[in-house]
């Protein structure tokens, strides 16, 4: 499933999951999963709750042992190593700061375990406090800090030992929205500047999209797709991924013709759809076309003298979101579609209302064909 490594990165993976399975009793959490993560990569594991993404991260940290398969770090098998012997560090979702230690004590904890000389520890702690902009907070206890500050201490503590891989388990989920957005950029900057490999677990698509170089979308203990954020969004490889990431309209149909660079699909009700993309599916096979709502053109008049990639219908609902509006349209053929239209005019001058007749159309390169 690994679709090669992004340009400019070492060819050898830093972390490799080899056919890893994990079962808790009868429950299968991870099923024969293979994945490569490369040096200096910001990799996101994205999926709904219960998809196994946290289990995967915990196996990399050493808190869980794989039932089958191997986990390699730098080419060496670390599957049997206990957590305290692995050169990876984790930032916990709850932060797990030691409440009886000061900020400095928390950051120095891991360094002390390594037997680092006192002077070096002090220097490293200072460096870390500067890095996360918490100078002057060193002697406070965790309960004397705000949520955002605690998050930074957790980050500094996990980074202090300069781990080969930094694992982040939903690192921003406890922050409020504004702080979360600011912190995203700080995380990216940090990863860039330190040249470290980050693996983040998140259920927040937006977070994964903004932060990661590559995303592994997980479902039911397996990787549904591993690709760059734009590929995941623009070229989902399955209905599930298309549906999970962002909003999507799915139109079922039969393949009429398939040439390199173009597929024509016939839908009994919607007519002919032309998509500028090849498919493996044979003529006559049932497939679906995925259309992102923002790629649909909405008009009050029939746009072209062509029945291709164009449907007529009536507006059933309008959702106003400020910058954009979502139009729910019931097509004449019975299909429900969603179109996302930028509000170029002020709302008071809105031209389309509920019940109005509209035409939806899309360009051939806007849709994606999905195998059944």
């Amino acid at each position, binding site marked *: 499933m690994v679709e090669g490594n992004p340009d400019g990165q070492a060819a050898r993976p830093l972390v490799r999951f080899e056919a890893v399975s994990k079962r808790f009793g009868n429950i299968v959490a991870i099923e024969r999963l293979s994945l490569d993560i490369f040096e200096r990569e910001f990799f996101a594991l994205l999926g709904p709750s219960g998809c196994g993404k946290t289990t995967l991260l915990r196996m990399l*940290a*050493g*808190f869980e042992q794989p039932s089958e398969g191997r986990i390699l770090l730098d080419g060496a098998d670390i599957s049997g190593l*206990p*957590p*305290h*012997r692995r050169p*990876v*560090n*984790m930032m*916990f979702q*709850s932060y*797990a*700061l*030691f*409440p*009886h230690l000061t900020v400095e004590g928390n950051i120095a*904890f*891991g360094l002390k*375990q*390594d037997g680092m000389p006192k002077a070096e520890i002090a220097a490293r702690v200072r460096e870390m406090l500067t890095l996360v902009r918490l100078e002057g907070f060193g002697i406070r*206890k965790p*309960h004397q800090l705000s949520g955002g500050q605690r998050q930074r201490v957790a980050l500094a*503590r*996990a980074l202090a*030992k300069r781990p080969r891989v930094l694992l982040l388990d939903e690192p921003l989920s406890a922050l409020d929205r504004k702080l979360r957005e600011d912190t995203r950029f700080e995380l990216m900057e940090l990863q860039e500047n330190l040249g470290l490999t980050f693996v983040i677990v998140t259920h927040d698509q937006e977070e994964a999209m903004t932060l990661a170089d590559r995303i592994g979308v997980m479902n039911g203990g397996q990787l549904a797709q591993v690709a760059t954020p734009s590929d995941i969004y623009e070229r989902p490889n399955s209905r599930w991924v298309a549906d999970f990431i962002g909003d999507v309209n799915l139109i079922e149909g039969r393949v009429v013709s398939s040439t390199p660079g173009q597929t024509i699909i016939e839908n009994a009700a919607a007519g002919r759809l032309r998509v500028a993309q090849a498919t493996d599916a044979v003529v006559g096979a049932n497939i679906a076309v995925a259309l992102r709502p923002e790629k649909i053109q909405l008009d009050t008049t029939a746009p072209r003298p062509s029945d291709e990639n164009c449907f007529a219908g009536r507006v059933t609902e309008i959702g106003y979101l400020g910058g954009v509006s979502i139009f729910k349209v019931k097509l004449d053929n019975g299909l429900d579609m969603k179109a996302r239209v930028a509000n170029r005019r002020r709302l008071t001058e809105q031209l389309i209302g509920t019940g109005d007749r509209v035409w939806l159309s899309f360009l051939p390169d806007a849709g994606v064909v999905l195998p059944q």
Partner: protein
Amino acid sequence: MTIAASSREKARRDWGGRLVILIPALWLTVFFLVPCLIVLKISLSQTMIAQPPYVPVLDLAAGWPGIKDFITRLSFDNYKILGSDWLYLASYLRSLAIATLSTFILLLIGYPIAYGIARAPRRLQPVLVMAVFLPFVTAFLIRIYAWINILQREGLLNDALLALGIVREPVVWLATDTAIVLGIVYSYLPFMVLPLYASLEKMDESLLEAAADLGAPRWKAFWLITVPLSASGIFAGVLLCFIPIAGEFVIPDLLGGSDALMIGQTLWTEFFQNKDWPVASAVAIALLVILLAPILIYQHLQMRAVEDR
């Protein structure tokens, strides 16, 4: 609501608040402070074969001169006796030594039990806590008499040791310090386990994972994280055991020998055998002062912990 009504409402609530504090305050005054003051007064009196068996007795009918006479006749003589007679000092030291040893053993046994319960599956925990408590539903005296049975010359323990060939002759258990400590540790275990369990149960398991993640092996994570975070439970358990053990009377009286006494036994002897209420009272007050010290230290530490929060 008008301002008058609201202030009346507020006054009523204030009064309610005062009442809530007043009831326990009144209770403690009548049943703790006043008796304490009476004991303190008796400890400053002289023994006398009379009814009550001490002088002076405050006689308010005699008026002001009577009160003056009463005060001048109070003295610290009984405390001088405590200081001059080796018997009393020896009893105090012995009590503190046995209490220290027993409390230490209790901590050593109680901590793993409390830790085990706190780490057990959540639905099992109430059952395990009950299991710690359940033996204490039977009468205390019966359980101590059971120990006499176990520890006597032809008792269960000697039978078992002889059968296993660990000893050739029956060992003398009863009337030794071993028997006292055994009985105390057995009796006080829940008072050590429960506060420890309460503090360990609250601990976030991800802290131990974080410690492991940062390079601490299990035993080190236990020592650096679990133990400091259960400090309040350790303090509470230690005090809850140490203080009553130091004043313990029944267990040393039934399981211990008659040659060396704990302070509770000395007090009993003074009171019931020698009928010397003033000296017995002085013994009690001195014990109170000795045991007050650790309580005050504990309170101080607690306050500091609260202020830290």
